């Protein structure tokens, strides 16, 4: 018997749609699509607190993966060509703060990673003079989603930097 009542349109990529189709057992293609899944990565809320030296600046941003598969942030670069490193501050139980370079950041399916003070951040090397309101284009390279652009705004509003 032909599955004639199943419209021939591209299968939705999101996990939720896959589950719906799969549960109706309409198309084995739909189920296969679920297993592979795809990440759906968006980068937003990129802010750079006005740096205190011209040597480095920290960028905080949010990465949301609303897709059905993990993705991995492999690196970051800036429009003006400065080096950018992924760093993480750790604050131990006694309050001692330390910082380490992070090679990659995994963004799991359905998860949101918030880079914020006292945690993950992008460290821009030698950004030069940055003033409140300045904007900088950043490029985030993901393993599966490719390169995503985001505009980071320099701000002196630290309540905004620390998050509402």
């Amino acid at each position, binding site marked *: 018997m032909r599955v004639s009542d199943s419209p021939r349109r591209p299968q939705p990529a999101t996990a939720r749609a896959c589950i719906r189709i799969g549960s109706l057992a309409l198309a084995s293609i739909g189920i296969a699509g679920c297993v592979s899944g795809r990440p759906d990565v968006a980068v937003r809320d990129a802010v750079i*607190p006005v740096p205190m030296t011209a*040597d480095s*600046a920290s960028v905080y941003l949010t990465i949301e993966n609303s897709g059905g598969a993990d993705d991995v942030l492999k690196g970051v670069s800036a429009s003006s060509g400065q080096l950018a490193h992924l*760093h993480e501050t750790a604050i131990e*139980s006694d*309050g001692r*703060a330390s910082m380490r370079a992070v090679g990659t950041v995994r963004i799991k399916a359905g998860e949101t990673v918030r880079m914020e*003070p006292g945690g993950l951040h992008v460290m821009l090397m030698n950004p030069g003079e940055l003033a409140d309101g300045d904007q900088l284009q950043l490029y985030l390279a993901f393993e599966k989603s490719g390169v995503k652009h985001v505009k980071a705004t320099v701000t002196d509003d*630290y309540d905004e930097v*620390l998050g509402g």
Partner: protein
Amino acid sequence: MRDSRMGNRRAFLRTAGVAALGAVGAVSLAACGDESDSAATNEDDNLGFAGTVLGYPLARPSAAFVDTSGAPFNVATETAGKLTLMLFGYTSCPDVCPVHLNVLAGTLEDLHGREARTKVIFVGVDTKRDTPEAMRTYLDQRSPDFIGLTAAPDVIDEALKQLMLPSVIIGEPRADGSYVVEHPSQILAFTPDDLCHIVYPFGVRENEWRTDLPRLLDYDWPDTTR
């Protein structure tokens, strides 16, 4: 630690950041035969402040610091009677220190009267790079009124011990000459009675400081020194 708080990153950091101090305070209380069995890490016991109230207050340090003009600076005598916020960091610090200093600068700009004259002391622990001159240039980015202090590593170590803060760790230089600096992330608040009753963890907001500073000036602390 309560499970319900674990989900709240800020609350967790706030509590964990002063856990060591809180534990010391709790022990002291017990030794004094105090009826209270409350741990100082319990947010409900923090009297409505955004920091953690210590079970046992700390004295202002009298370590042999040097200010940004190169002159000796004794915190205990130079800031006696004044509301003083003290933190330890380094001038190349990209994350924790600039956040602290900017939040404090922003807070004080918006205040008037006595609380606007709160002293802020930043101790540079990266003694190779945090020279008096480098400290002044760094702090002037936010406020010429911020006091910058440095000292020999053993003097800083001793002061941190006295203040029950974690020690500084300076890592071995890498190939490119950079090295890791680990430092306490807390801010100590010394009140006009010359004691520190309360320690602020990383992540306190400007609006919380604006609420707390006037209260810190006038708060009638129970006498726990007997």
